[in-house]
Every structure is written in C-alpha cells, then in structure tokens.
C-alpha cells in the first residue's frame, strides 16, 4: 500500500459498472423477473392487481424481520427466537385486550414486548458473553413457552376493527398498509446499513470484531442495539400478523425464524457475517413471495413448493461460487 497523502484511493478496485452487473443483486433481479414471467404465462390469474396485492401478504411480515435479521447476521450474530417473540408479543396483546386495551395500547404492547425480548437476547449475548445461537435457541422455547402457559389451548380474539386495519387494511387501492410499512422499513434499513457510520461498524464487526474493537468500535453496544432492532421488527410483525389473523394462539408464526433466515441468506448475506445488502434481502423476499404464490396459483402441493424453495436457495448460492471457481481455474 502506498500512502501518498494527496492521491485518490478508490473504494474498490473493480470497475463499478462491471461489478454492479455481476453482483448478486442483479442475479436476484434476473431470477425475480424470470419467475414473474413464468408465473404470468402459467396462470391466467396472476396478472391481476388484487392477486398481486394478495401475493405481498405472503412475505411482508417475514420480510420485516428479515431486514433486521440481515444486519444481525452481517454482524456475525443470529436470532432464532424471532417467531417466538411474535408469539409472546401477540399473546400479551391479546391479554391486554381482555382488560379493554384499545388499538394504540395494543400496538405499543406488541412493539414494546418485541423490544424487551430483543434486549433480553442482547443482554445474554453481549452482557454474559454467551453465543447467540445457543441463547436464542433457549429464548425461542422460553418466549413461546410463556405463551403456551398463558393461553394453553385457548385463543384470544375480538380485536377491534381499527386494530385489524394494520393487517388487513389498504392505504390506497390495492396497496396494503403492510406493503407500505415494509417499503418504509426497507428504506430505513437501507440508509442505516449503507449510509451511516453505524452501518459501517456492523460490517466491521462482522468481518473482524477484534479489529473493530481495537479501532474504537463499541462492539457490544452495536450488537445489543441490533438485537433490540430485531426484537422491534418482530414486535411489529406480531402486530401485523395478529391483526391479519384477528386472533392469537400460542402456535402463531411457528417456523417463521427459518423462513426469515432463508430470505436473508437468499438475499446474499454471508451466513458467516461481514457481507450483504438490504437490496438483496428485499429482492429475496419478493422472490419467495412470487414463487410460493405462483406455485399456489397452479395448486402445486406445498411439499413441492418447499423442494422448489430449497433448490432455488442452493442454485442461487452455488452459482456465484461455481462461477468464481471456474474463473480462478482458468
């Protein structure tokens, strides 16, 4: 490295245009467009404003979590308790409903529970220095366990119409509130990760947290904030999902942690941390929605859908690696 003070040092050595074309995101755009076209040809019902609007409900809630999860995974941590946080937040909202809580209180409880659960995870990981995968496997059972204790085989229902709007309402024509919220959240997370110092620190921690610490990054604090953010987004997803279902059961959102993580990985975030973009995650969420809805329109059995998503994941991850290997062999 030459260190001449007045020389301009480029951020990257590749040609920016070339690297943009060869990037993961362009690949995802191609895949999304391809699936969109295949869907349009294979089902006469796909290209309909209401169908496309219904399609977005297949992924918006999970994608909200995936946005925060992306940052967490880039920083080298993971949160497997997100679906359980939804269950607990939804249960506490239902509990408050029994005591006459109205919509603003319900939303505050949902989001507050999410943040509290996230902070609890963050404390265990950063305060007690425990590995996040172990901590969140534990809290996954803990949070959902509390829901089961409160609810058993019962359910909470009777949410007010103004609350149901969050999960079923439309802002304008076919544009649902969920979709708008997701778009806003995606923008916020884009700015946070790619346009702020905080975002740079997240990458630095994910690449090498010891080096980051020696460079003056308060690693523990950043990680704690990321766990709180993931909790916040899970709480938000809990509000939306509860409003959409109009009821709460302890089994709510079962298995969603893996779907959110699938979106993150499909979006090109390195599971080892240190790399990934928000645009990739948003595209991955869209692809998962397009695939499940497209196959649903053809009445393809769910198991085939799972196989398809799995194959897609492997192909999309394997392609760039194979490409790199081929190129280096030459």
């Amino acid at each position, binding site marked *: 490295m030459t260190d001449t003070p007045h020389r301009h040092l480029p951020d990257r050595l590749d040609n920016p245009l070339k690297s943009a074309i060869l990037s993961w995101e362009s690949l995802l755009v191609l895949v999304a*467009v391809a699936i*969109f*076209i295949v869907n*349009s*040809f294979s*089902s*006469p*019902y*796909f*290209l*309909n404003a*209401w*169908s496309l609007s*219904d*399609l977005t*409900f*297949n992924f918006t809630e999970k994608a909200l979590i995936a946005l925060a999860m992306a940052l967490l995974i880039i920083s080298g941590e993971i949160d497997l308790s997100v679906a359980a946080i939804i269950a607990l937040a939804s249960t506490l909202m239902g509990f408050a409903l029994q005591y006459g809580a109205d919509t603003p209180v319900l939303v505050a409880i949902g989001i507050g529970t999410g943040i509290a659960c996230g902070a609890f995870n963050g404390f265990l990981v950063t305060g007690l220095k425990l590995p996040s995968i172990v901590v969140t496997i534990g809290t996954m059972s803990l949070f959902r366990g509390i829901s*089961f204790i409160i609810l*058993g*085989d019962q*359910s909470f*229902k009777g949410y007010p119409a103004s609350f*149901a709007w969050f*999960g*079923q309402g439309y802002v304008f024509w076919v544009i649902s509130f969920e979709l708008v919220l997701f778009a806003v959240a995606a923008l916020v997370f884009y700015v946070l990760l790619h346009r702020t110092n905080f975002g740079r620190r997240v990458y630095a921690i994910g690449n090498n947290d010891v080096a980051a610490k020696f460079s003056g990054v308060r690693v523990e604090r950043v990680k704690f904030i990321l766990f709180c953010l993931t909790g916040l987004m899970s709480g938000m997803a809990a509000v939306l*999902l509860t409003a*959409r*279902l*109009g*009821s709460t*059961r*302890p*089994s*709510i*959102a*079962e*298995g*969603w942690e893996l779907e959110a993580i699938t979106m993150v990985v499909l979006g090109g975030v390195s599971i080892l941390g240190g790399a990934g973009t928000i645009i990739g995650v948003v595209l991955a969420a869209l692809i998962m929605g397009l695939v*499940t*809805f497209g196959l*649903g*329109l053809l*009445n393809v*059995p*769910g*198991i085939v*859908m*799972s196989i398809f998503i799995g194959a897609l994941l492997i192909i999309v991850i394997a392609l760039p690696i194979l490409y790199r290997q081929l190129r280096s062999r030459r």
Partner: protein
Amino acid sequence: MKLLKILAATTAVAVLLAAPAYAQTRIALVVKSLGNGFFDAANKGAQEAAAELGDVEVIYTGPTAATAEAQIEVVNSLIAQQVDAIAISANDPDALVPVLQKAMERGIKVISWDSGVAPEGRQLHLNPSDIGLIGETIIKLAADYLPEGGDVAILSAASTATNQNAWIEAAKAAIPAKFPNINLVSVVYGDDDSVKSTDEAKGLIASYPDLKAIIAPTTVGVVAAAQVVTDQNLIGKVNVTGLALPSEFKQFIDNGASQAVALWNPIDLGYSAVMLANDLVKGEEAKPGATLSMGRVGEVTLDDTNSGAMAAPFQFDKSNIEEFSKIY
C-alpha cells in the same frame, strides 16, 4: 425499457390466456395438510361427487405444514383463481376468518367441514358426526375392553385443533355419568406429527405405570401410540384406541395392540362437502333450519349456527377391519 417491453408482451399474452371463461364450477377442497390418509380419502369422495355432478371440477389442495398461516396462503391463491366455492377443514377456527370473509366478499361460497371455522367465516359447517356422540364413543371404545375400569389417557393432535378439543370436552363430560370407573389421567398433544406423537405416547407410558388405555382421536397419533405399545411389548397391557384410518391401522388390530377403533367415513365426508358447496353455488341458501342435499349420503339440516352433522362414527374391529382397510 427492454424489461418494460417484455412485461407488456407477457401481460398481453396472459390476458389472452385469461379470456376463455371456464364453464365448469370449480370447488376447492382445502385440507389441513397434504399427505394425510384421511384427507386423501376425502378427496376420493370429492372426486366421486364431481364425477356424479358432471360440470364440477374439484381442486384438492392444502399446505404441507398444518398451520393457519400456511393455509391462509393457500386460500389467498384460491381467491386469486376465482374458484366458485371453498370447502375447508381449518387448522384454526379464528385465524382463517378474515381471509375467508375476504373470499366471501369476492363472491366465493365458503363452507367448512371436519374441523370448523367460526360462524362469521363460513356459510355452513358440516360436522362428520355429532361432537357429543364422538366424545362418548372414544371413551366407550376404551371402556368396552376394561370391565373393571382403570386409568386412560388421551393423545390428541395440536392443542389448537378445534375438533379434537371439542371431542375431548365431550369425552370428559360423558365420563362421570356413563363410565364412572374410567379415570382420565392426562391429555397430551402430539401435533399430528409422528415423532412428537411417539414421544408423547412414551411419556404417558412412563408417567402412568397403571395406564390401561391410550385414546388417540387422531389418525397420526393412534398409529404412533400403537407402534410404541407394540415396540415396548405392552400388547395386552395397554390398549390403544381412538379414531383411526382402517388401512393405516389394520396391522395393530391384527397384532392385538388395539381391540377396536372408530371413524366416520372420510370418503362420504369429502363427497358431502362437495355436494353442499355445489348446492350453495347453485343458489341454495344456508340458513338455520334449512335442509340441504348431500347426494347419496342423504340430507343435512342446519342448526342455529348453520352447522349440521353427517352421520354417527363407525366402529372397526377384528370382524370388519379387513374389509374397510381395502376401502380407505
């Protein structure tokens, strides 16, 4: 720009494809999860009804995981396909309500069968049998082979399964008066998952050494429990009973792990569900007191909540399991 052109061309083609209207009535038979013998049998009956009606196409569909969220995705895709009717066996009575209301708003007839939806989410519900009668039958199945009474336990499906919970309540209600020497010690949930059901059955046997019978009112749980009893050499000591599909369960009647099980006829259930959905599509109205036709199965009269019962449960034992195991 190129992308826009491609999209425009695709749209044009899709519109052309969409143009020919379907003359047929399309009825979707939505089940809790695919890969379940009971629902496959129901589909057989549904296809039979479609063949009998002639102008009806049955779409047999459902999620892989038996969750309300996955089932909502399936219903959303059926709404998009503008089917004429949805006949659903629901994973959750409440969570499906908003999406099914949306279906009804868009002109789709909605009925529930087997596992019901809350009244505001469907036009009518078809019970396979009477809840009280089933609750009593599952205890009777155990009591018939326990002349001196004893401890029994229930291995159910998901703790949220509407029908299982109703039967268990009815069973509990029937015990004091009709089966005073039967002692229900525990109710556990295997989530209609073979592995979890097996673990729960092992847990019951370990926790209650005097257990005389395991009652599993679910086709998955009953097989798991009977397998555990067989594997642990408890045949003759613990009797497994409940609601079972004859073809899946025949081996356990044969080896003695179970004396008898019961079930209604899922073929008739799928058949009746399609017949009722077709009645509504043809313009019949579902209201309390209305009598609707179920083809060869007969007629159903709706009660105050617009639900009706198809028939009484049917008992399978050594005398008839051979015959019914060939049917479903």
